[in-house]
């Protein structure tokens, strides 16, 4: 009966890989060129953003690397473009390509972190509301109702405005990113909570959960191991689409001047700065950050759309 562990391990691993390769999702992915395109773009953007310090000609935050005589250079394909400033420079001699890559980094991190935070809070509160019911459910869902009765962008602006008004000047810039993450997560957890709550309510009444309760399995264990896996599909779709929304919201807040400060600019901040030179002919300062932002959000939305259709049993 004794089998060496190595022999059992390899087939399992193989099976797992082929399970992915033979799955409907992978098949659907391969037959959707737009999904492949979106994933490739997103991977490329993420990779260049992560490797920004190694591939950019300068660190746009480091004031010592900026030379004023390099300012206002148009992109390389224009008549007076200059190497190595592929996409030109701004009025302070900052290379636009470097700024865009560093900016994408900040935008992606803030978007990702706020989705994770909202997901964590939303799942926890939604599970509790659906599983316990009663006043717990009432309180959580009422708070959610109130949050949903105000426009998303307004809540986020108010939070950032209040935070920056009540913090001392020194801390404001340091905490800009965490404040933004929080401000975007606050109005967006409700959606996850509602989705999970609905399935948790259904599952909590089922016999297997009743049985688990009877043998005194702990409540959190039932919620995490039995109920949560049953509602992951809609959650994953919502999370993907919300990642795009979070990046958009961050950009909007930074554009309005309540987001990232100009010494650690996100894409939105770069667009706000570039917007000041709209009428002076320096179009490249504003256009390239805009294109990058649109590319990121577009690819995320395309993946989200594809995922929603691919995971929807009605459309199969």
């Amino acid at each position, binding site marked *: 009966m004794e089998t060496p562990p190595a022999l059992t391990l390899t087939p399992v691993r193989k099976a797992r890989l082929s399970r992915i390769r033979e799955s409907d999702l992978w098949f659907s992915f391969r037959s959707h060129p737009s999904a492949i395109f979106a994933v490739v773009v997103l991977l490329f953007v993420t990779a260049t953003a992560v490797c920004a310090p190694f591939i950019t000609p300068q660190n746009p935050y480091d004031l010592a690397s900026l030379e004023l005589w390099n300012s206002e250079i148009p992109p390389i394909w224009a008549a007076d473009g200059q190497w190595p400033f592929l996409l030109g420079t701004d009025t302070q001699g900052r290379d636009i390509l470097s700024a865009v890559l560093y900016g994408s980094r900040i935008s992606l991190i803030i978007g990702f972190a706020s989705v994770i935070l909202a997901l964590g809070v939303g799942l926890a509160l939604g599970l509790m509301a659906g599983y316990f019911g009663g006043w717990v459910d009432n309180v959580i869902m*009422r708070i959610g109702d*109130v949050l949903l009765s105000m426009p998303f962008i307004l809540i986020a602006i*108010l939070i950032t405005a209040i935070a920056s*008004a009540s913090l001392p000047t020194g801390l404001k810039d340091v905490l800009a990113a965490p404040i933004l993450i929080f401000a975007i997560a606050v109005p967006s957890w409700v959606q996850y909570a509602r989705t999970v709550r609905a399935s948790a309510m259904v599952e909590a009444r089922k016999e297997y959960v009743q049985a688990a309760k009877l043998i005194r399995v702990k409540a959190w264990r039932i919620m995490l191991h039995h109920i949560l896996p049953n509602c992951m599909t809609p959650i994953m779709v919502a999370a993907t689409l919300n990642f795009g929304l979070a990046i958009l919201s961050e950009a909007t807040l930074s554009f309005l001047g309540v987001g990232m400060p100009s010494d650690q600019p996100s894409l939105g901040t770069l*667009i706000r700065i570039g917007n000041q030179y709209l009428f002076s002919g320096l179009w490249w300062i504003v*256009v390239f950050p805009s294109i990058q932002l649109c590319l990121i959000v577009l690819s995320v*939305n395309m993946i989200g759309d594809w995922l929603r259709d691919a995971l929807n049993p009605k459309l199969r």
Partner: protein
Amino acid sequence: MIAFLLKRIANAAFVMLAVALLAFVIFRFFGDPVEMMVNEQATLADRVELRERLGLNDSFITQYTRFVTDTVQGDFGISYRNQQDVMVLIKERFPATFELVLVATVISLVVGIPAGVITAVYRESRLANILQLGSIIGVSLPSFVVGILLILAFSVSLGWLPAFGRGETVDIGWWSTGLLTPSGRAALMLPAISLSTFQVTLVMRLVRAEMLETLRADYIKFARARGVPAARVHWRHALRNCLMPVITLTGMQIGNLIAFALVTETVFQWPGMGMLFIQAVTFVDIPVMAAYLMIVSLIFVVLNTLVDITYAWVDPRLRDDTASAGGSNG
């Protein structure tokens, strides 16, 4: 039905009270109102006197009740920044925002509905594919980027349309409208288009989804079998049944459009409520912030409640408690 009506109204009132509480807490505890109002030379006695006069020494409950009563009567206090009555400021700015949102809504319907029908009816055609691609790009383009690109194209390069301001306006009573002058209409074009981009795609996607569903219905097959011309089947019989959700969406989105107008207004220097709010945020002018929050939330909540009530009136199944409690959207 009356029980449902009362419940929905009570719910809306609860939400508004909660929003008011939030606005009050912001007003009262972030920044000292007295410090904001007095000038540098004010003596300590002046401050104590003002604090007493504003009722800031009363209990939290008393102050909150007074805040709510004042708000209901349209009294939002005095702006810290320019010492004007907040309600007067908002009243001045409201027409600009309203006209912008109205025109954007009209654009979204005029463009979105036909586009949705075309993508649903001629599903495999090249035009439909282009429109579909356009719709996903439209969802992904931030409205401020659309605004900036429009300015670059139509104001900076071509010089056709103005990039900021409202043009000439005409006063009708207290309402100032830009719709009656050529320069006012020209100034409205770019902001309205940029505000409507997202809404157009939303309407288009909804119409497409509804049409695809409706086109499978028996009465459509029957109409076709009877020899009703295709155009008439699509644009009259099928489309009519898709319009209810579109109206709902349009109604519910107006609140969002008003909120999103603040981004558009910033890009185009449009003198509306949103600009007022963003300026208030930069100067920590809390009465204006609180008033804007209250007014936008009120519009939002009233529209949502109206939509819910209309639905329950049309479809009695929704009067059930369980249906309205959780599942309004998934």
